[in-house]
């Protein structure tokens, strides 16, 4: 059988069948199309401004390694004039981070980018190992998720950087869309597909330039560019429920490769249809993106009782703990949507955590609340 030619350049031999649309491409065309698409995402959503300092959340895993490599390439090719920095979080899990941090260190040299590693111990006074020691393995994914989410922001603040990019890909976004539908979380559903999370109110802007990139294409890109990455998975297993959404996405992708992108598209459209009253955003929350937090209690609630009305109350109870001493801030209307002035009432309001000053819809942010519990535990043990 003669080799299949690349459908784009018609010259080279096709070596890649694009997972996204089954196009057969040569190595060079695949790499350039992948980069062009990320460039398109960046320019069409006006993600950066010239001269911006941007921290790349780097775990040493495939997504963030590809993100760093692509951003470096595009920054040079299209003259974004970005000042790129690698930012890594050391959760303090012995034996788990050592190798991936080594990878990040090598990446820093390979991409000639400065690297900053922030440790949970310096940020929170607790390493993950100590957390597990205190509270056991159950529920620690909540801690890991909440702590990790804030760690990047806090690390960026230390570097005086106002924009953090993360390696979340289209599969992650699609999974989050489905998760939020299954959990019945309309507020998060409306945010889950936003390319930028956090808003003008928060100190650090978060974005995901690989939002439309398929996980399988990220792996292929890393492979064909011979990138140096480390396979990391959170060793603390996420809620079982997220697993069912993940496997659902994989079966849909098998049936129709475009399904992942189509789910992202639907998620964006549904975000526009979300009633204004649930759109209040909170900087500590990126629409349930890759967070294992807060799902655990809900999963329990979902299992406990199938009774519809009852279930709704249970979930509401989890969410509507009224903040007592937060600063009330106006809720921004979504652009392009009309506000009819009736957006008063019991809106979740944004404020700053009384302990650490981090954006929060509660008087104390999730991380500080968890820390309170932990520190109380530590005191108990000390006694």
């Amino acid at each position, binding site marked *: 059988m003669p080799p299949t030619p690349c459908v784009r350049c018609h010259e080279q031999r096709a070596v890649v069948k694009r997972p996204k649309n089954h196009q057969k491409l040569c190595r060079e065309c695949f790499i350039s199309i992948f980069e*062009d*698409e990320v460039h*398109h*995402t960046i320019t*069409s*959503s006006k993600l950066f401004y010239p001269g911006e300092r941007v921290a790349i959340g780097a775990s040493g895993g495939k997504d963030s390694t590809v993100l760093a490599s692509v951003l470096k390439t595009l920054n040079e090719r299209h003259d974004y004039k970005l000042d790129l920095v690698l930012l890594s979080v050391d959760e303090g899990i012995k034996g788990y981070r050592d190798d991936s941090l080594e990878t990040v260190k090598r990446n820093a040299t390979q991409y000639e980018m400065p690297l900053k590693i922030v440790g949970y111990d310096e940020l929170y006074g607790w390493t993950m190992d100590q957390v597990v020691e205190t509270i056991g393995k159950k529920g620690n994914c909540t801690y890991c998720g909440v702590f990790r989410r804030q760690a990047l922001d806090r690390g960026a603040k230390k570097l005086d950087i106002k924009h953090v990019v993360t390696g979340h890909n289209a599969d992650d976004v699609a999974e989050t*869309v*489905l998760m*939020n*539908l*299954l*959990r*019945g*979380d*309309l507020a998060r*559903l409306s945010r889950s597909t936003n*390319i930028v999370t956090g808003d003008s109110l928060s100190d650090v802007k978060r974005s995901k330039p690989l*939002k*439309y990139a398929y996980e399988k294409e990220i792996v292929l890109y890393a492979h064909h560019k011979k990138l140096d990455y480390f396979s990391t998975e959170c060793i603390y297993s996420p809620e079982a*429920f997220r697993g*069912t959404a993940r496997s*659902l996405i994989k*079966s*849909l992708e098998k*049936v*129709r490769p*475009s*399904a992942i*992108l*189509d*789910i*992202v*598209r*639907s*998620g*964006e*459209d*549904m975000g*526009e*249809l*979300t*009633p204004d009253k649930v759109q209040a955003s909170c900087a500590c929350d990126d629409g349930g993106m890759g967070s294992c937090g807060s799902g655990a209690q809900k999963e329990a*609630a*979902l*299992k*406990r*009782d*199938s*009774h*519809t009305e009852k*279930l*709704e109350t249970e979930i509401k109870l989890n969410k509507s703990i009224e903040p007592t001493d937060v600063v009330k801030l106006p809720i921004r209307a979504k652009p392009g949507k009309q506000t009819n002035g009736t957006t008063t009432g019991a809106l979740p309001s944004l404020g700053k955590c009384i302990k650490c000053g981090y954006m929060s819809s509660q008087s104390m942010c999730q991380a500080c609340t968890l820390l309170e519990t932990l520190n109380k535990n530590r005191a108990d043990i000390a006694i």
Partner: protein
Amino acid sequence: MPASLESNPCTRCKAEDAPFQLRASPTCGNCFAEYVQTKFVKRLAYLHKEVRVSSHLEPRRYVAGLSFGPSSSAMIHLLDRYTHMQGRKKSTSAFDILAIHVDTDLSYPPGSRDTPAQVLIRNYSAKYTHFSFRCVHLSKVLDVQTVDWSALPLPRPEGGCSEPSERLRQMFDKLPSVSSRADVLRLLIRHLLLDIAMKDHHYKTLLLGHSTTSLAALSLCEVANGRGFAIPWQVNDGRFPVTIYDPASGAEIQRTTYPIHYPLRELFRGEIDTYISVFPEIAALNPSNTEGATAAVVSHKDTSIEEVMARYFESVETPYAGIVANVVRTTGKLDRANASRPSCGLCGVVLDERGDSRWAGEMGDDHNPNGEPRLARLCYGCKRSING
């Protein structure tokens, strides 16, 4: 649910024989049927309040979709039982039901009698003598003006193929995947049912037999089809937007709405199955258990997105019943997009005003380098179904 060996009495009425499970409690057949009936009647009462035009006592006239599957068969049975109950009370109006089965088997020439679907519809007709039944061939959808046929790859009648079934079959053959065929078939069946209901001014509402489980699967199926805008229209009870097109030019003639209701929306699929086992006469109507003859257009060799979703929700209904209800409730809360915008010629939902090629997720349409203009008449999801 199979009969259990332990003889726990019914938790509701204390009857000794309680072989069924309702929310994990032993229940007798009577109490189970009453539970299902109550959930059903509640939705019917809501519907009655919504569509009633005058305070006069007049029959409630509805068109009901009948696929011969468990849910729609149970719906007809429930309607029949309710009619008998109402018949005893003179204070409320009676029911006038027209149940329609759309025969999707394109292999029979039009006008054939004694097709499997026609045999089944006669069974129903003989059992439910108060209701009217009709079997309509899918090819009739070509006369329907609520679809912008110029936006679909339908061979033109002057192109040597004038036989409606054959034209439809050729169109289905052109669709890129099993998922596309299943999706387009579902939309066409709905168009045909709506068209019949709307043309006969006698009838006020279209009833569809979706359970909570199938509405959840339908919601997520539409999510996976890229039809996010359509979801609040698809899962809620209420008026569905309809556009009438000129069959020759594809120009928009008129816009209107027509009510669609799902009276089984508060019942899980498993509960409907149990209901059917309480009343063996339901299953007896359809001994070979054929759920329409979809095989002719949608091959079951490959799996479709619709099937993946249906399986997913059937598998999570027992361990996580809450999420099944969650999906329907969440998507039901979404706003319905402004209906004054141009709508999609296939699914009928408003188009994205920004246009799809400028969408950040796609660099542009590389499927059609020649830029066929007719594609702009379809929404993102319908384009996916038609073009792949």
